[in-house]
């Protein structure tokens, strides 16, 4: 297993702890809005944060919370949106599904599956047309992949040689259906080969692997080869709202039980725990949880 820098370890723990706090608040019905947590997506979000350059931009889906937290590094900021606090200059509240926290490089989040892809391609096209620097990353799930917009965008991006990186978070889940329960499996490597789009595939739970894949994709996209990165991810929480979501929900996430939600390599925090060892992990976690606590 690869090692983690201190910055990476802090980022992963802070993000996990923020999600735990949000989950507890959701259980306490503290929000009027639906929130899509992303326990298990921490390495993907932190990897994205570490890969993006200042001139890059990011377009997200409904499951954008982890990325907004990773980029803003502030649960408090995200909470101002979730709690529908007033915004400056008469701007509307962003709430959760369209959250794109200011000054994070996140320029657009869409709750409509596939909708963010064309917008991301448009930004990439504008960058190319105006000869402005910056790669556009766009994140989606294995459900959104079924939308026609996914195919259209790949063809468009390839045809116009756009600096676009499409990240598919494949969690084998679309709301309550696994892939097998809803469609024929799709081999994205073959799809990308057919379209001559660069393809990267890796575990979305391993921060190092995510960084390597995103960095390689970014480099290719900078040269006008749009790329797709497929991340195998386990989402440990319910589609939306708190987990457990109902009295006899077999999924359980409780902050009191500790930061880990999985006890194998599918949990990015478990990977960190294994590398650091329990004592060091707990020491670091205790410190970060104190600083990151929002009450």
């Amino acid at each position, binding site marked *: 297993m690869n090692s983690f820098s201190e910055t990476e370890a802090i980022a992963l723990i802070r993000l996990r702890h923020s999600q735990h706090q949000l989950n507890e608040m959701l259980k306490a019905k503290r929000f009027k809005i639906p929130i899509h947590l992303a326990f298990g997506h921490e390495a993907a979000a932190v990897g994205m944060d570490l890969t993006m350059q200042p001139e890059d931009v990011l377009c997200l889906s409904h499951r954008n919370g982890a990325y907004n937290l990773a980029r803003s590094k502030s649960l408090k900021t995200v909470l101002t949106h979730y709690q529908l606090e007033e915004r400056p200059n008469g701007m509307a509240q962003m709430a959760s599904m369209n959250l794109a926290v200011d000054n994070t490089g996140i320029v657009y989040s869409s709750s409509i599956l596939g909708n963010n892809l*064309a917008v991301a391609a448009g*930004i990439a096209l*504008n960058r190319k047309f105006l000869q402005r620097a910056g790669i556009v990353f766009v994140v989606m799930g294995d459900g959104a992949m079924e939308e026609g917009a996914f195919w259209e965008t790949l063809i468009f991006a390839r045809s116009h040689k756009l600096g676009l990186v499409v990240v598919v978070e494949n969690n084998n889940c679309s709301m309550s259906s696994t892939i097998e329960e809803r469609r024929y499996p799709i081999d994205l490597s073959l799809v990308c080969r057919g379209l001559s789009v660069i393809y990267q595939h890796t575990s979305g739970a391993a921060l190092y692997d995510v960084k390597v894949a995103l960095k390689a994709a970014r480099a290719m996209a900078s040269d006008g080869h749009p790329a797709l990165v497929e991340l195998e991810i386990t989402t440990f929480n319910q589609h939306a709202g708190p987990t457990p979501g109902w009295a006899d929900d077999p999924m359980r996430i409780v902050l009191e039980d500790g930061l880990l939600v999985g006890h194998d390599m599918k949990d990015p925090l478990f990977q960190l725990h294994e590398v650091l060892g329990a004592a060091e992990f707990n020491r670091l976690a205790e410190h970060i949880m104190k600083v990151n606590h929002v009450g």
Partner: protein
Amino acid sequence: MANPTYIGQIIGQVNEVTEHCGPVFLYGENIDRGSRISGLARGLKVNPAGRIQNVGDCELTHCGIGFGIMLDGGNAGLFVKQLDFMLLGLDQFANTFNSIRAFRQRNTLGSFTVFVIVCDQGYQGPQSSFNGAGDFASIANVPVFCLNGAGDASRVVQKHFVAPGFRMMCLSQRLFGAPVLDVPVETCDEDRGLFRYRSGNDATIVSFNFSLRDSLEMDTHLRGAGMQSDVFHMNFVPRMDMGALVESCRRTRKLVLVDDSKTVTKFGDRLVTELCARGINVKVLSFCRRGCADTDYGATEDRFLPDVERVLAFMRHPACSQ
């Protein structure tokens, strides 16, 4: 240019903007090939910093692309062969633009303009007969302009094309080869939502969609019979000020609505509701196709003809009292 056509005049206006506006990205399916989108893009030019780009057949993506360019501060112009193709982009018009308008200051945005042909000549078959430009305005609450003649086209294109934000500019296929309608505009509002072409105290005639020629013809008949009317054309602009229309109706007490779209929800209804709400009593004659019989969607000529005799009969009735 001597006697330009309807489309020639509009493209001339577009070119006047693109000549000086700096980087602008004009794109569409076959925009620089073959018939140039049935003539929509024939003669289109850009300045050296601009681009005319042929693109593949993916309208939903084209609409998202335009918003992406706009979000990133660029200027996008999408040229489209049929209004019904834009139904594929409705998600972008409604959802994407709703998000942008809610979260971003307009002055930080670039521009996105859709130039789209409305297939209103008929003979195209059922699947190309959608002509309700205002339906887009209604669903997405966005400005939709129907370019009818030289006066409105020049003012709308000059004011809005490459201005920050989003709008659709619709062109009538039926009028493409016709000589441009060059009737002087008497007044128009800031947003280019409402144009007045003629004035008088006997009736208020309001044209929607591509009915301006018919409305002016109707007015000419009435003038021949000694009756003078206010003649307006109304575009679909969010939060439009209807004050001038209301004032006119208050004066004339007779309202003639002319709308060649097949849409069920009519923007003229909004005016009537507004008049009711203000307690202004008017007699209303509505020339419109409120939806159609199923057979009307076939491949025949798609011609909407207001009946002049009915207007004359309507005008002979006394107006409502105060």
